[in-house]
């Protein structure tokens, strides 16, 4: 029981913080909070999924295991005695903001970007046109997407966008089954990709090679694929005058390297590998064409030229030259987009929680809302690698500490951990603890070891419950929320 007379944040009366979202941002925020000198803090972390780690589990490509070792750092954070995890508890359906206000002094929203941006062109919703976000979630075994279907019996695929996510999607489509079988790709995806008849994969960039969003290691890796030859058209790899001038004026090593890699691809001859991966530049999709059954058969592209904005950025502008690319499958990889949390102020056009340096703002007064904070992709938008969320979370935690110092915190009716757990258990009796996760993790890794893979993921909640020996109770309460 907390001692109501002790100063908030002292051992007698720890600061109680709820972190919503167990992705990298949530863990970095927890780490910054636990690292505050002279602060006693208790953290409850929630995730709508039974498993922690957000996009580290559900986004990062299965053939990029090394970056996933970041979870070892998260495990250490979770081992702090003041830390509890409540998986399979969703803010909005299982708990509301008012519940959090009733139990915590500060609330930190780190829910990431849950959906995709659209291209806004005709035909976008034809059969065979999908957001890359869903394909990524599917091959990574995200519970909500495991039953999606993608028609991999077609020969040609277009991926719109040339960010690192587009590269991930292209690489997974081009990997051989043998390569995939050594990763932790979801079993259902492995089975489907084994049967893939895809031969040509197009990556479509709307600007030139120098402006491509992908990073150098990622594009370099595409040149080393065992099962696919990379193709770049020499005329598209050439630098236009504006880019040339900009690079003369302000040389930039990373961009120079990027151009060098792409130009080296333009000089290559295909070596006869089973698939080809064609990286295109200066083209924008204007329409998806369908057949009578409403299925994609082609993507219409317009050729772009570049112009300089007043602030110096080279942006694409359509010319009057069009081409039709016959494809049976289209993935749009033009960025993620955040979704609002019920009761939390939101900026719809940017897809972020309305905030100033992480303090959630009231939409009317533009003043900070007491005790509510945000970080990561739902704060600044869907860009940046794992580590970018660390300084981002720190910026927010600094605001939290400043506000605590000034006495600006929520005043929960029930200040103890026990009471919070009671409420959570009542709302979601099937919640998953960190201990549950540790067991699931061991089981997944063991299943993987048996077949020479890093892990074999559970992709259904019932399987997780069964594996933990937690049989689903028959009560209607539990049944309704087990989805």
């Amino acid at each position, binding site marked *: 029981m907390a001692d109501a007379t002790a100063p908030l944040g002292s051992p007698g009366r720890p600061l109680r913080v709820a972190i919503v979202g167990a992705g990298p941002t949530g863990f970095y925020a927890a780490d910054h909070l636990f690292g505050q000198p002279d602060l006693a803090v208790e953290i409850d972390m929630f995730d709508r999924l039974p498993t922690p780690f957000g996009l580290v589990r559900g986004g990062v490509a299965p053939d990029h*295991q090394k970056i996933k070792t970041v979870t070892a750092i998260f495990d250490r954070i979770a081992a702090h005695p003041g830390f509890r995890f409540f998986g399979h508890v969703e803010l909005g359906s299982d708990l509301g903001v008012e519940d959090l206000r009733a139990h915590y002094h500060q609330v930190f929203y780190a829910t990431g970007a849950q959906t995709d941006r659209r291209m806004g062109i005709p035909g976008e919703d034809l059969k065979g046109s999908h957001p890359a976000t869903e394909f990524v979630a599917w091959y990574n075994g995200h519970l909500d997407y495991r039953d999606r279907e993608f028609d991999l019996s077609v020969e040609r695929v277009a991926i719109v966008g040339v960010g690192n996510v587009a590269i991930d999607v292209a690489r997974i489509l081009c990997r051989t089954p043998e390569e995939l079988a050594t990763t932790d790709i979801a079993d259902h995806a492995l089975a489907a990709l084994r049967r893939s008849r895809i031969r040509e994969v197009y990556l479509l960039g709307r600007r030139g090679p120098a402006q491509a969003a992908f990073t150098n290691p990622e594009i370099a890796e595409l040149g080393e694929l065992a099962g696919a030859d990379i193709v770049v058209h020499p005329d598209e790899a050439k630098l236009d005058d504006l880019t040339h001038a900009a690079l003369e004026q302000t040389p930039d090593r990373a961009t120079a390297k990027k151009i060098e890699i792409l130009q080296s691809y333009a000089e290559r001859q295909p070596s006869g590998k089973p698939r080809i991966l064609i990286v295109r530049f200066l083209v924008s999709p204007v329409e998806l064409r369908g057949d009578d059954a409403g299925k994609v058969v082609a993507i219409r592209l317009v050729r772009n030229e570049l112009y300089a904005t007043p602030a110096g950025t080279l942006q694409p502008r359509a010319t009057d030259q069009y081409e039709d690319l016959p494809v049976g499958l289209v993935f749009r990889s033009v960025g993620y987009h955040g979704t609002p949390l019920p009761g939390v102020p939101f900026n719809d056009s940017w897809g972020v929680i309305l905030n100033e340096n992480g303090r959630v703002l009231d939409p009317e007064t533009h003043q900070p809302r007491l005790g509510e904070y945000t970080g990561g992709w739902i704060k600044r938008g869907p*860009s940046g690698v794992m*580590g970018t969320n660390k300084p981002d979370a720190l910026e927010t935690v600094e605001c939290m500490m400043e506000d605590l110092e000034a006495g600006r915190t929520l005043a929960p009716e029930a200040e103890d951990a026990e009471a919070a757990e009671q409420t959570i258990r009542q709302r979601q009796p099937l919640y998953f603890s960190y201990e549950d996760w540790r067991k699931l993790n061991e089981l997944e890794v063991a299943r993987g070891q048996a077949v020479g893979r890093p892990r074999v993921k559970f992709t259904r909640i019932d399987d997780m419950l069964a594996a933990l020996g937690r049989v689903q109770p028959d009560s209607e309460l539990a049944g309704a929320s087990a989805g």
Partner: protein
Amino acid sequence: MNITSILTKKGTAVFTARPEQTLRDALSLLAQHNIGALVVVDEAGRPVGILSERDIVREAARNEELFGKTVGAIMTRELTLGGPQDDLNSVANVMTARRIRHLPVVDGDRLIGIISIGDVMKAQRDEFQGEVDTLQIQLLKDPADPIRPR
């Protein structure tokens, strides 16, 4: 990274002044909101200039009666405007080359924000720091990487 990634965490309020307002009004706005510049807008809300601390200091150095002057009389009229999709690298280059400290951001005709060179530098520093941290994570431990063994 583009300008949007800065605007997303700056709230939505942009502090503006009209050209016919007095400098006294403008100064109290700057002080009240603890900011370094005001975007000067016309009746339609379109940016027509910018009034920065620099403009005021320059005027104060030569004019004792500056408080009564209008914003329009001393603001900087040559405006460089940014758009939400502008890349931060090119923005940083342009701001440094033209010695611009504050860049109003418009979406078409509509003023949607203002960013400072400090904002741009911080975003770039955080991005760089994040990339270094991410590389470190990858070097930290060397688990069995199935495809790219070291």
